[in-house]
């Protein structure tokens, strides 16, 4: 119904709708759009990297530009592609999976998105304003504090704004999952995706503040003359490394855990079995998150922390292999004895298992301190993290997109194109990154603009670059698939996969209030329970009544815009006095909006019962 209406509305109306929406499903669309956009950008940067490294001593880009490319590639992919795509999936599925009408803080949800979007925009504005950041995504001081131009300033401001958005998103999901579950949806009945979103949010809550402070210190050093990392005034650059990795390591689990959730849901749905060892899966996730805070120094083995610290962190790091292994084997056991249906969504999930296992195992290999003295900062590490990030996170996002696409947009992605995407991407991926393990060991450090002729690295790099083009092809097919599906795609039924969880009990796409009557949950995999033991549909937990919904608001957009403007003020106030106008103007805009928000009561609106009854026919 809603698609039909949408098509009739003017473009302006749709745009306004999205600019002011606080509906988690529309915010999911926004996140997917924003994340997708930045994924293409980051991918193009990756292609530039691979073209430059295609042959020895290539000069496709200059040394300085190469550093900008690799910095922006890493930063964009992690903060502006993977994170928002994950938040998009969380927005699309979590409220539905727990039987809620919306998230706990719809206004903040929208604010979180706009902060991310404007943070990403500000970061990418650097390309046109004198050069992008060039100190690596890790921005180690003093390279970052002394990097000329404004590149790193854009990094600091952009990530600060986007990071604030993520933090808000994290708190929002925590409260949503704790307070908004439907009757009967106890913690131990929550689908794994919801569980892992919950635990991921905890990680966000405790990890992002470290980044916030790190960025503040960097900002103070660059813009206000402080001396945190200035050795001549007693500063200590290792503080940045600690702060960055105290954030950075939990961040990589933020990137993977939600997708572990996606895979868990997929394996059990497409094998038609309940998840094997559900409790163990939940606790394994918690354990990974818990341990994830105690291993950050494994990125700093060569810094010179001493053998005691190195040993402790090495052992803590290895320990993470245990809960992760539990997960891998439980997934296999889930499929064991089931009836596995393979489609594009499931293909990504199946491709994930061997790929991620390789990545995890090289993770354990780099955790072995003395071996890491060789691996560290080489292509071996590049291979490791692309195996886990692309093989885990990106595969997971693709899996989730194929799986929930019908729920989100009411149409099923084309299967043939889906297969083509998967196979080209999968093959390209292994071509690109498998060889990199050996390149690293053969003496190729990472972040190298060129490698010298006669270093024995030519063939490997060429293969790697060819692989990247396979991946690019796969991605293009995927985008073609989206367009194709939107135009010609097959209409989806409400429950196309014989689903087990609550989201499949709603319409495809769901009404904006999700559930006319909040469902009563009677067990794990509630829809499956009803299908096998009940009448096949969810029993309502409440009589039909008025539904209370939040009002849309333009303020989140304006607030983020204010920060965006103020961001430029911060960056340029060192050079030009007019920048203060931006700085104070932007801040005033932000504070004005905040004041408006807190002074004006916004009690939301009600959808009257009568209207709901009318819609039923």
């Amino acid at each position, binding site marked *: 119904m809603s698609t039909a209406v949408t098509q009739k509305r003017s473009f302006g109306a749709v745009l306004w709708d999205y600019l002011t929406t606080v509906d988690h499903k529309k915010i999911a669309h926004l996140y997917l759009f924003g994340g997708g956009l930045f994924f293409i950008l980051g991918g193009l940067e990756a292609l530039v990297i691979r073209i430059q490294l295609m042959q020895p001593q290539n000069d496709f880009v200059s040394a300085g530009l190469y550093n900008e490319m690799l910095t922006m590639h890493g930063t964009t992919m992690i903060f502006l592609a993977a994170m928002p795509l994950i938040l998009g999936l969380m927005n699309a599925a979590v409220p539905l999976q727990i039987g809620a009408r919306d998230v706990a803080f719809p206004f903040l949800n929208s604010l979180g998105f706009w902060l991310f979007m404007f943070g990403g925009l500000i970061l990418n504005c650097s390309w046109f304003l004198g050069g992008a950041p060039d100190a690596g995504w890790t921005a180690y001081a003093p390279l970052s504090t002394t990097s000329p131009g404004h590149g790193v300033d854009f990094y600091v401001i952009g990530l600060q704004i986007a990071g604030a958005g993520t933090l808000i998103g994290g708190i929002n999901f*925590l409260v949503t999952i*704790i307070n908004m579950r439907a009757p009967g949806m106890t913690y131990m009945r929550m689908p794994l995706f919801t569980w892992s979103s919950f635990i991921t949010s*905890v990680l966000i*809550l*405790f*990890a992002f503040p*470290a980044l916030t402070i790190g960025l503040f210190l960097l900002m103070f050093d660059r813009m206000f003359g402080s001396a945190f990392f200035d050795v001549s005034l007693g500063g*200590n650059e*290792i*503080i940045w490394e*600690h*702060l960055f990795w*105290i954030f950075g390591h939990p961040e990589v689990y933020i990137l993977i855990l939600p997708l572990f959730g996606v895979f868990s849901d997929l394996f059990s749905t497409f094998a038609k079995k309940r998840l094997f060892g559900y409790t163990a899966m939940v606790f394994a996730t918690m354990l990974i998150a818990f341990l994830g*805070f*105690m291993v*950050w*120094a494994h990125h700093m083995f060569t810094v*010179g*922390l*001493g053998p005691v*610290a190195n040993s402790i962190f090495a052992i803590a790091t290895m320990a993470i292999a245990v809960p992760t292994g539990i997960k891998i084997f439980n997934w296999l056991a889930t499929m064991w004895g089931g009836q596995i249906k393979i489609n594009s969504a499931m293909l990504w999930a199946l491709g994930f298992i061997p790929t991620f296992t390789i990545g995890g195992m090289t993770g354990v290999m780099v955790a072995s301190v003395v071996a890491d003295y060789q691996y560290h900062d080489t292509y071996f590490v590049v291979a490791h993290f692309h195996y886990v990030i692309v093989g885990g996170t990106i595969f997971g996002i693709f899996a989730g997109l194929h799986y929930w696409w019908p729920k989100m947009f009411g149409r099923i992605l084309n299967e043939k194109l889906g297969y083509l995407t998967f196979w080209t991407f999968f093959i390209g991926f292994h071509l690109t990154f498998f060889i990199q393990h050996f390149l690293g060991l053969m003496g190729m450090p990472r972040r190298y603009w060129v490698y010298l002729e006669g270093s024995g690295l030519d063939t490997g790099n060429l293969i790697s670059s060819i692989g990247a083009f396979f991946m690019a092809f796969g991605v293009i097919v995927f985008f073609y698939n989206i367009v194709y599906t939107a135009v010609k795609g097959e209409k989806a039924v409400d429950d196309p996969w014989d689903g087990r969880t609550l989201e499949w009990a709603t319409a495809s796409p769901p009404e904006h209030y999700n559930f006319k009557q909040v469902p009563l949950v009677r067990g794990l995999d509630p829809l499956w329970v009803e299908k096998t033991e009940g009448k096949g549909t969810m029993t309502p937990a409440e009589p039909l009544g008025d539904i209370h919904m939040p009002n849309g608001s333009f303020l989140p957009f304006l607030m983020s815009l204010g920060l965006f403007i103020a961001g430029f003020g911060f960056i340029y106030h060192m050079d030009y006095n007019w920048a203060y106008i931006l700085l104070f103007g932007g801040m005033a805009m932000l504070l004005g909006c905040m004041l408006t928000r807190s002074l004006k009561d916004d009690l939301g609106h009600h959808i009257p019962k009568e209207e709901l009854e009318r819609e039923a026919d």
Partner: protein
Amino acid sequence: MSDSTNSNQVNPYQKEKNKEEMKKQLITFALMIAFTLIAFGIVVSGAMDKMFVIPVLIILAVTQVGFQFYYFMHLKDKDHGMPAFMIYGGVWAAVLTLAGLGVITWW
């Protein structure tokens, strides 16, 4: 909230309870002030050996903060499981951070 009595006031039982609670808060406050005095006292008098002062100061601070959390902020109350959990989480991350920055940035 629909199933409440008809009086316009807070019910007297609750009021009594609130009062008692307030008494506890006052005691808490007195203790906090006492801790503060001790902490400042130790440092000003310089009576204690350097080795011990710092641990003692930290213990005093932690206890005082415990009071603040448990009584003033009601972390002790029954329905505060989740908040308590999150604060412990935060404290855990905080302790690790402090360990990282305080101990292993030094050579």
